[in-house]
């Protein structure tokens, strides 16, 4: 079983090597490419960025990002190339624009709504209830009877 695993690992090793880009390594390009890659969503496994994903398509996208950066395109140009083809879905962080207003503002709106509700109603009600309501005459009589002696309620 153990040998089988080793054999399989070796069998797939050339395929893994074949995917490494044959481009000269440029640390500056690489740094930007990682940044770009982290902001682009893998369209196969959608909760990962292309930098994290093991999907073959993500690997090709990483290569394309590096190739375009090496060719002199800026970070924004490369991201625009991807959003142009895959829409805003390909961005890990949705942009702030009209159709995402609800997404971005809903948490703030809910927080403000809750705060208003608290200060307008619940807070005052809670404070009022800290003061016990005086017993009515009937209740006072009942209490005196139960306690078996007279006196102030």
């Amino acid at each position: 079983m153990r040998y089988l695993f080793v054999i399989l690992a070796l069998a797939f090793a050339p395929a893994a090597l074949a995917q490494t880009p044959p481009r000269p390594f440029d640390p500056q390009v690489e740094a930007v490419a990682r940044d770009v890659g982290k902001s682009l969503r893998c369209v196969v496994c959608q909760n990962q960025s292309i930098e994290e994903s093991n999907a073959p398509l993500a690997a090709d996208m990483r290569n394309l990002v590096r190739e375009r950066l090496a060719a002199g395109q800026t970070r924004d140009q490369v991201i625009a190339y991807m959003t142009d083809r895959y829409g805003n879905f390909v961005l890990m962080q949705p942009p702030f624009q009209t159709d995402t207003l609800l997404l971005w503002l809903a948490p703030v709106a809910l927080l403000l709504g809750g705060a208003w509700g608290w200060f307008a109603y619940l807070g005052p009600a809670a404070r009022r209830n800290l003061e016990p309501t005086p017993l009515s005459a009937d209740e006072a009589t009942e209490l005196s009877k139960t306690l078996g002696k007279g006196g102030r309620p």
Partner: protein
Amino acid sequence: MSVIPSTEEPQPTRAALPAWAALVPVALLLVVGGFFAFGLTHDPKAIPSTMIDRPMPEFALTRLTPESDPLTNEDLKGKVSLVNVFGSWCSSCVLEHPQLTEIGKSGRVALYGVDWRDPPSDGAAWLTRYGNPYLKTGVDSDSRLAINLGVTGAPETFVIDRDGRIRFKQVGPITPEVWIDTILPLIQKLESEPA
């Protein structure tokens, strides 16, 4: 709306909520219910294509059968055509293949194949095994065309009009239903459009 009363009698000092306040939970329920009604009936993984009504990107793909000329935009000119993205690694493509074979045989529309992310020998072997319905098949081993087309998986099929514009993208297999209900009517519509 209020905290638990400390006596059983209604309290005269209770915070007075306006009458409409009773409708607030109902309204909230409707809003949340609306979001769920949308969210639970839509596939969150379905990425809407931005490519519809845009020209087919420039491409030149090496042919799967190496002796012939590349597959390019020129091949798509002047007629309605289907570009089917497949791969020998793609199990849904096997599922789709009988329908493609049918379409290829009928000659109803020009059908082109893009063998995506596949060693060419694998793609060729796959077509030998299941039959080749394509007029021409290009190899896109590094996803260059696939990314340019916004492809997210295989199979995907693009309907291209006579002017070389992408008019529709079918994500997932072309089933007989998809062919009859969606793609065939669209082809007829595109063919009746003035050139």
